[in-house]
């Protein structure tokens, strides 16, 4: 009790203790407050929630109700209705054109962004906005930025208006050169180059470089603003329009093929033409990934068969009217053969039967063909009110939004979000929990092992001591880092946290063992120990009762250091990619930040909080240890 009081007076111990407990309390309490799943990288799209009733209706096939529901949603104007406008438009079949514009514009803007083609963006934007396209309000701001290059002109004017009286001839010439260079660059579709020019000049510290900073800043604002806008826009389109369309496309294609195939399959064996349709069936059966190919082949085959069909029907018509002599008038040999195979007496009846069979087949083939041709953005093959079609589009609306990737800190996300849209603060709490736990387990195991081995080697001595000491020194010299790596690689992906802790603990015990042994050896022949030995106490009792209490303080300090080292080892392993990839630990967070180049791109919130947490824990533990050292080893009072 006395020692605890003394420890609490040591400023170092207190500081360290506070640091560590801050992190521990945060790690323990925060997840209880914010109970979301830290790995949930999808935050609900309100729009998705809003259309839940609509989806239900579509599932039940209630087309009429669905239409009304869509209208209601649009009138409500509360959710994110871009896609629903398109949905409704498609649904009423006269606004497909809008969808096409969006699609086209998205592609152009995409391309323009890739090439930073400023000149190309502006007219497209104008057309889109004037056409009342989706998210126009957002894009107006962007167009404003591009309009007339106002900020850029202003900047250039400022530059031209600066006082050059202090410059000599050489300086003036240089200045003029700079102006010309900048103006030329600004006229290009790639204004960022102007900024680079200014940066170089700035670095070279030419005359009035301070004023060029203003220009640089103005340009930066323009560029950065523009770039941000374009990126956001891109994301938006990427996220809503294009994937949906593509998905719809694919689904429709595939659905179309299925439907066509089933239409063909309905032509039964009993049908006279069953055999003829074998190649067509084969095409459908062999359907691979390439739906377009299947469609093409099937369409061709159907067309061919259909042609034959028509020929037969025409011929049958002729035969029905004119009778048998019409047969010889048949041009096509195959068709003629069919008629010739008929019974001469009942030729009319036979022709009729043939016509019927072909007619029926023909209809089905038409059906199939029409289904196959329901591809592309036309949606021509589907009828209004067809619930399955609407459902396809509804399904295309993502349940979540991904725009929360890599956001800097904000009110909803105090530490921002990472590359998987996860809330960093929540992640940090869970990661700290895991790392602390692993460190604790590792520390316990290492300390316990170290104590046992140290006590045995130190007290019993002799051969056992030699063996244990050799073993300990072995592990001291062969870097534990190496053993950790080899073990982790051999064990593959370590699933459980406690196994990681176990592995770390198994490689960290040597130095504790060595120190405990040294202390035990110095205690071995103390008077009280000798007394205990002489009076016949069993060895284990001597060790437990006479020796252990003396090294108790040391053990506590060693434990603290082992925990710190365990946490660092876990972090190291995770950074190297050796831990459990699906678990979140502090090291894993750094590993991901490294992989996704967060550091280099300045997304500090993705790793600085983690780094600070680790630093706080380890620094705190070391301080606690230093404080305890001062109390228990006053000789080195510093």
């Amino acid at each position, binding site marked *: 009790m006395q020692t605890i009081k003394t420890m609490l007076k040591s400023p170092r111990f207190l500081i360290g203790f506070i640091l560590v407990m801050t992190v521990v309390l945060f790690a323990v309490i925060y997840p209880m407050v914010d109970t979301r799943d830290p790995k949930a990288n999808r935050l609900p799209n309100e729009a998705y929630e809003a259309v839940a009733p609509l989806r239900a209706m579509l599932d039940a096939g209630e087309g009429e109700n669905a239409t009304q529901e869509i209208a209601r949603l649009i009138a409500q104007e509360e959710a994110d209705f871009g896609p629903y406008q398109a949905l409704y438009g498609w649904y009423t079949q006269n606004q497909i054109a809008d969808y096409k514009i969006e699609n086209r514009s998205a592609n152009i803007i995409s391309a323009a962004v890739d090439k930073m083609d400023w000149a190309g963006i502006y007219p497209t934007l104008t057309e889109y906005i004037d056409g009342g396209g989706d998210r126009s309000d957002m894009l107006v701001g962007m167009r404003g930025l591009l309009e007339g290059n106002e900020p850029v002109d202003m900047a250039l004017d400022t530059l031209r208006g600066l006082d050059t009286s202090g410059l000599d001839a050489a300086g003036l010439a240089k200045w003029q050169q700079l102006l010309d260079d900048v103006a030329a660059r600004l006229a290009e579709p790639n204004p960022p180059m102007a900024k680079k020019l200014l940066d170089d000049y700035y670095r070279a510290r030419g005359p009035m470089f301070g004023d060029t900073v203003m220009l640089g800043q103005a340009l930066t604002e323009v560029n950065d603003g523009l770039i941000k806008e374009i990126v956001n826009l891109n994301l938006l389109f990427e996220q809503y329009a294009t994937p949906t369309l593509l998905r719809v496309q694919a689904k429709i294609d595939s659905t179309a093929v299925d439907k066509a195939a089933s239409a063909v399959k309905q032509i039964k064996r009993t049908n006279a033409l069953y055999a003829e349709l074998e190649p067509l069936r084969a095409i459908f059966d062999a359907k691979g990934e390439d739906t377009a190919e299947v469609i093409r082949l099937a369409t061709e085959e159907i067309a061919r068969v259909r042609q034959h069909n028509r020929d037969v029907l025409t011929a049958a018509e002729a035969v029905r009217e004119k009778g048998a002599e019409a047969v010889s008038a048949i041009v096509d040999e195959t068709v003629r053969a069919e008629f010739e195979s008929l019974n001469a007496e009942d030729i009319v009846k036979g022709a009729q039967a043939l016509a019927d069979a072909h007619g029926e087949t023909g209809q089905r083939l038409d059906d199939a063909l029409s289904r196959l041709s329901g591809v592309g953005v036309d949606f021509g093959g589907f009828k209004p009110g067809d619930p399955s079609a609407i459902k396809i589009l509804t399904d295309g609306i993502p349940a979540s939004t991904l725009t929360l990737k890599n956001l800097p800190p904000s009110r909803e996300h105090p530490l921002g979000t990472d590359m998987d849209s996860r809330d960093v603060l929540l992640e940090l709490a869970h990661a700290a929990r895991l790392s602390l736990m692993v460190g604790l387990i590792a520390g316990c195991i290492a300390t316990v092992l170290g104590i046992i081995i140290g006590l045995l080697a130190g007290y019993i001595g002799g051969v056992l001591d030699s063996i244990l000491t050799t073993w300990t020194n072995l592990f001291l010299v*062969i870097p534990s880092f*190496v053993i950790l790596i080899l073990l982790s*690689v*051999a064990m593959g992906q370590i699933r459980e946290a406690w196994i990681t802790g176990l592995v770390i603990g198994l490689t960290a015990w040597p130095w504790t063992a060595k120190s405990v042994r040294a202390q035990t050896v110095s205690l071995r022949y103390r008077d009280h120990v000798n007394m205990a030995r002489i009076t016949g106490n069993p060895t284990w009792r001597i060790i437990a009762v006479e020796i252990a209490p003396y090294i108790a303080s040391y053990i506590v300090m060693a434990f603290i250091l082992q925990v710190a080292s365990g946490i660092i080892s876990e972090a*190291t392993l995770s*950074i190297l990619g050796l831990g459990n990839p699906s678990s979140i630990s502090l090291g894993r967070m*750094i590993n991901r930040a490294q992989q996704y180049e967060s550091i280099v791109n300045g997304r500090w919130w993705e790793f600085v909080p983690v*780094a600070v947490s680790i630093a706080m824990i380890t620094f705190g533990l070391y*301080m606690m240890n230093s404080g305890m050292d001062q109390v228990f080893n006053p000789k080195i009072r510093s």
Partner: protein
Amino acid sequence: MKANFALAAPGAQGKKAAAYILTALLVGVLIVIALSGHASLGWRLALAILVAAVVASYAMPTFGKYLRKRIYWYTGTFFVALALNFLLPRLIPGNPVDIILQDVLAGITDSSAATALKNQYIAQLGLDKSILEQFFRYTGNLFKGELGMSLYLAQPVAKILASKIPWSVAIMLPSILVGWLAGNLLGAYAAYKKGIYEKVIFPVSLFLSSIPSFIFSMLMLLWLGVSWGWFPVLGGFDAQIISKQSGVYYMSLLSHWALPFISQTLIVIGGQAIGMRSMALYELNVDYVLFAKLQGIRDRKVTRYVFRNAMLPQVSGLALSLGGMVAGSTLIEIVFSYPGLGQQLMMAIRNVDYPLISGCTLVISITMLVANLLIDIIYGLIDPRVRTAQAEEG
């Protein structure tokens, strides 16, 4: 208590010592020649030096015994490390060849080619033989300088290692040496002067030495590299420079080297300053200081005594640092994407490229062992207490 004064007596002893040392040199040369062809030059030299040292050690009674003991110990440890490097990948459950080759095999559809590849690996790894034979083969190959082929880079492991090691050493060796020197001076100064410097240097060093090194490096990278843009942040050099001989190339090498070097040096300084300060403080308050001063010996001279004594443990600390050089550089290289051995190790781990992993860990182990042996020897030479302890053991 045996007191050993042999070194003070010249004459017959000296002649004996000379004889031993000459014999040692001769033996060494013979070994280098004799083993040529059976082992690579590096190993021959190492073996020659070791054997020569053992022979020469008989010339010095106490130190020689200490030297021999250390050499035997480290040789034994070396074989244990070797065994670990050999065993652990083979502990993977299942057929190691299948696991090693699974990704590679997935791309091969021709089954006969797949079987051929498998057999090649089995033969290469010697898996068709007993474990003991495999170990001998492994050791034999090792001494010839052959470490196997990397699975993903399709190059000999030895070649890969040889090209990567200089990068790691380039950062770690200077930073450890400079940091060690600067840190010790700083710590000694702080202990002696006890002024404002102590209030500033000590907390800063404590902080520097407590933060894990990679954290500090990351923060330095963010601060100096990204925010202030003083240094480039990726790689060993600017990849766009084509001519490798130009001055521009060397400049880019230097600028890419600078930040990792600075980070690492600061960290080493932090650790050393703390250690040295504690040692110096301890030594300054020790009895012999008081006695010497009371006898009128001037402060400066006494201080010199103190720091000489305080330095001794620091030397063994230097050994540990140098030994852990490659291991320590791993994290730094990952943070700075610097193309050294550590980064190579990480990529090997990611690709589960066993031969390369084995090779890297072997290099790390050997470096540690050699550094420790060297420092043990040097420490034995400079600290007489070690010799006394040895003499006591008899």
